[in-house]
């Protein structure tokens, strides 16, 4: 038996109530948006500085080159990629009105024609795509931060800002950075609203992006990136903002997911060259495109370089030359494996998806709050506000979220075993897993275990020397166990 039909239902009830109380058309549209979001897939936003690799990573996760990537700053409008049965692109204005946009594929990438629509009038673009990867997750691409064109960065900040929460805000964030810069920390901190814990290690992870370039594309670049990511995981400044840091070479992942047969053919023909020739070609990007080499046209080599980067080439060509990889799927697989994408995917599965319902509920509540605050005061509004407060305060799922935040960010001092237990409790839906037992455990066993843990945590919470935050945390864990106990009586 799961335990969180609770908060989702309560939030749904509030939304229904709001629908009845609000007359405004536009507000209604927003309410619909909130309700859809509550029932829809988890919304994950990609944020980071300009050229951190957000669009590339997004494409890798979707498995298609949807988001445009380019040498210069590219993404200028918040773009939402969601699952749909057909293909469609909509420009959504600030007033909620949407306008279909013409689009096409250009060399595999999606090309949207903004037409006469001025970018300033667009709040965000919605791309509906029948990709299976988008069933569980809606991915949101944002303009880069610290852009020279301030407008773009402000859009992202506006989109993510807790106070501005509208239908469409993210439930979780993947933050990309190439090395930790103070603007990264500032940004992460800015939309970490400490009073409601909107975004926190609970729903944010960091990616050390363009990992191949960190080690200047040496062959050991990715190992180096892993060491750096490990160091970042221990940094106090990051731990309070994201739950972990993983290195990913986005370009490798994107290309691995979308490799074409003709590209493989070109690579294979290159790999057939003498070792010395290959070494020459791989010395530098200019070297790779050297017109003096006649084996493959410069244009073809240029596009291989764009697709794989010099690191990808340094990785792939020797493998092909040695015969260890002999067909396109094998190469694709090797690229994805090397890129670190799999780790990120499993992280999202382990860390975001189990909390999806709670996170969506929280987003919906925040959206409702914000919506109400913009409407004229009335009894109905006050009733809604009271309702919201009640759910926020009472819903144990939110308390568990808070618990997870406090533990993950290191704000409370717990022993490693206790910390792991607290996190497990906060995320596991299944009662047996919650108490640390296998799924098929019998009800009596579960009860006994729960009782044992309740005592442990109540004792901790009652300790007069512990600070109030710690006591709060222990209390929450105890109550979670109590719920397990009650459910198995």
């Amino acid at each position, binding site marked *: 038996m799961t335990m969180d039909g609770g908060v989702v239902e309560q939030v749904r009830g509030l939304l229904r109530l709001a629908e009845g109380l609000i007359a405004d058309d536009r507000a209604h549209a927003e309410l619909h948006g909130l309700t859809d979001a509550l029932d829809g897939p988890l919304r994950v936003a990609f944020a980071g500085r300009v050229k951190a690799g957000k669009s590339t990573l997004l494409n890798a996760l979707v498995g298609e080159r949807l988001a445009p990537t380019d040498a210069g700053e590219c993404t200028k409008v918040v773009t939402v990629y969601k699952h749909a049965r057909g293909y469609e692109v909509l420009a959504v204005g600030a007033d909620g009105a949407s306008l279909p946009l013409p689009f096409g594929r250009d060399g595999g990438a999606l090309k949207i024609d903004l037409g006469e629509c001025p970018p300033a009038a667009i709040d965000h673009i919605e791309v509906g795509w029948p990709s299976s990867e988008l069933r569980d997750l809606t991915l949101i691409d944002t303009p880069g931060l610290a852009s020279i064109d301030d407008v773009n960065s402000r859009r992202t900040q506006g989109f993510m800002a807790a106070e501005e929460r509208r239908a469409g805000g993210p439930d979780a964030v993947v933050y990309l950075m190439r090395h930790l*810069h*103070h603007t990264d920390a500032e940004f992460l901190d800015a939309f970490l609203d400490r009073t409601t814990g909107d975004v926190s290690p609970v729903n944010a992870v960091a990616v050390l992006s363009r990992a191949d370039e960190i080690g200047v594309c040496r062959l050991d670049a990715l190992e180096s990136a892993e060491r750096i990511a490990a160091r970042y995981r221990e940094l106090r400044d990051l731990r309070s903002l994201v739950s972990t840091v993983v290195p990913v070479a986005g370009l490798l992942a994107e290309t691995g997911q979308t490799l074409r047969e003709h590209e493989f053919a070109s690579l294979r023909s290159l790999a057939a060259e003498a070792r010395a020739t290959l070494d020459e070609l791989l010395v*530098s990007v200019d070297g790779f495109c050297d017109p003096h080499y006649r084996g493959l046209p410069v244009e073809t080599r240029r596009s291989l*370089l764009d697709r794989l980067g010099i690191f990808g080439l340094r990785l792939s060509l020797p493998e092909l030359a040695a015969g260890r990889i002999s067909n396109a799927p094998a190469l694709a697989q090797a690229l994805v494996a090397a890129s670190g994408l799999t780790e990120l995917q499993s992280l999202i599965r382990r860390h975001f998806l189990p909390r999806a319902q709670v996170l969506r509920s929280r987003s919906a509540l925040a959206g409702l709050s914000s919506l109400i605050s913009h409407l004229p005061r009335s009894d109905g509004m006050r009733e809604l506000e009271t309702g919201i407060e009640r759910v926020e305060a009472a819903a144990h799922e939110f308390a568990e979220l808070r618990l997870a935040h406090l533990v993950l960010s290191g704000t409370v001092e717990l022993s490693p075993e206790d910390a792991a237990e607290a996190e497990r409790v906060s995320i596991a839906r299944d009662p047996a897993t919650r108490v640390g037992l296998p799924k098929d455990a019998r009800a009596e066993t579960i009860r006994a275990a729960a009782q044992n843990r309740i005592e442990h945590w109540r004792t901790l919470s009652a300790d007069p020397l512990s600070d109030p935050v710690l006591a709060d945390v222990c209390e929450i864990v105890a109550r979670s166990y109590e719920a397990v106990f009650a459910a198995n009586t």
Partner: protein
Amino acid sequence: MTVSSAAPSALADSEFLAALDAASDAASQLHRPDLSEQLNLAGDRILRPATVVCVVGEFKQGKSSVVNSLLGQFVCPTDDDLATSAVTVVRFGGTVRVLVHRRIDGHDTVEEIAPAQVGSLVTEQGDPAVRAHVERVEIEVPNPALAGGLVLVDTPGVGGLSVGQAAATLAYLPFADGLIFATDATSELSAPEIALLRTAVERCPTALMALMALTKVDIAANWRRIAEIDRNHLDATGEKGRVPIIPVSSVLRQAALRLHDAALDARSGYPALAEEISRRIIGPAKKSATELAAVEGRAVVAQLSASLKADLQLLEHPEGLEMALQDLRAAQARLDHLRGPGSRWSMQLGDRMADLGAQVNYTFRAAMRTASREMDEGIESINTPEEWDRLGQELQTHVAEAVAEVFATLERGVQELRRDLATTLMEEAGIVDADARPRGVDVAALWTSALIAEDEALASQAAGQTVAGLRGAQSGLSLFSLLGQFVPRGAVALLMASPLTLGIGIAFAGASLRDSHRRKIALRRQKAKAAGRQFLDDVQFEVGNELADTIRVRQRDLRDEFAERVTNALKVNSDAAARAQANAQQAEAERGRRAGQIRAGLERLAAIDRALAVRDVAGGMNSNAGGPT
């Protein structure tokens, strides 16, 4: 006694240098070793103008690699992860030497360490305790690229989590003669980078040349596009943005040097970068050094000629001896007046320095008061530890700027005073100073590396004249303060500390999510204010001490310098008198012979003057030596 025999640069006019050499010889033959020394140093400046080139940029953009690649040798540590965390000054030295400058509890220490330990001191690796208090690291290497007087400064990246470092890095910039801004070619310039570039260029003097090194072009597939985009961004910032962009690759450079492959080296972009540095930074430095030397040389020649002419006059007209001797005695009397503490210049020096000291102290205290007020106001409006960190960083930045300003003001005042004192000497006793131009600051001397013990320090004061002589490489530098000597030693140790170690962040640590207890917040604010005030007090204490020391030292320097001028003038005077009497007693034939020698000497001096005049763009302040009348 020749001009320094360092490797001659292509830009030095060898004829000019020969003339300078000859003038120096003439001076020493005519018993004016002081003038000879002066010209030797002027020549030195031409051959090795101290030019400081700072490499700045956001962190992990490849700055240390740029330095290493320019040198063709691994000097600055590089790493995939950890970044440079201390200012590293690299200059020429006969053997490899590494010196660490620390400031602990108000004491400067300089320690020589093994080169292998540089990494642990200059990057974030290893024990933070080892890195603590390091203000800068100086590395001397026998590298030919540096033999011409070039000093390369590798700076900690700006934009890492410790923003206090940015303040320290920017505080060093006014001393640079050149600036290399490093940004990598894998992505375009970001807003913080442009802001940094703008600040850096503004902090440096108008004569500064800035270059942008676009690094890592070997791995950036789109580097040409990026260069174009960057060019547009730079041009959009206005006049100051016309900074040349030079694509480089340290990886290719390394390979090229290993394989002795000139074509590969050219592709690495480093020869082009070196060429730009030479053309835009070292070239102008040499040019102004040459011009300055021309002026000095001609002034020396004029003095020598005047003295020879006077001798000649007496030889040819011995009846004028009595009058000449009278004149000399009168001059002697005037000069005697100038000796001793009661003399006008001495009192002027004392009074003006006292005034200057009071003025800078007042300015500094006012700035600290403003900072304190702003801090208080800021604290009232913040709620979270992170906001406090940011406020702490802003505080550090403002303080760094105030300190820089104070020392700059001090130095300007000292230079002005120096000019005025020279005028006084001139008015009082007609002392014409060949080196009347304001002495600039030898930037390289700012980073002097001697392991100075107390008595050595005194000895080097005497040798300080040599250092002083090296100053003035670029007249435009005359406004630069000795900030490089003092901010690092003083406040930077405080400025570079993170807000946490200042105890400021701790005041807010552990804030719980739902902490709405107003009393707790008020308490925390009080703590924060107290911590901030403590920091400001510490800064004031440190800087106050440094100011007092600086003023004392500068005053002593000036006093010594001008006392020496007076002594010199006295000696010249009494020598002239002695010569006049000796000549008068000679037999007629002997006098004729001497006169002939003198005329020959005057002709040689005239020839030297003509050679020097070629580079004297100021038109020469003294008339030429002229031939025998």
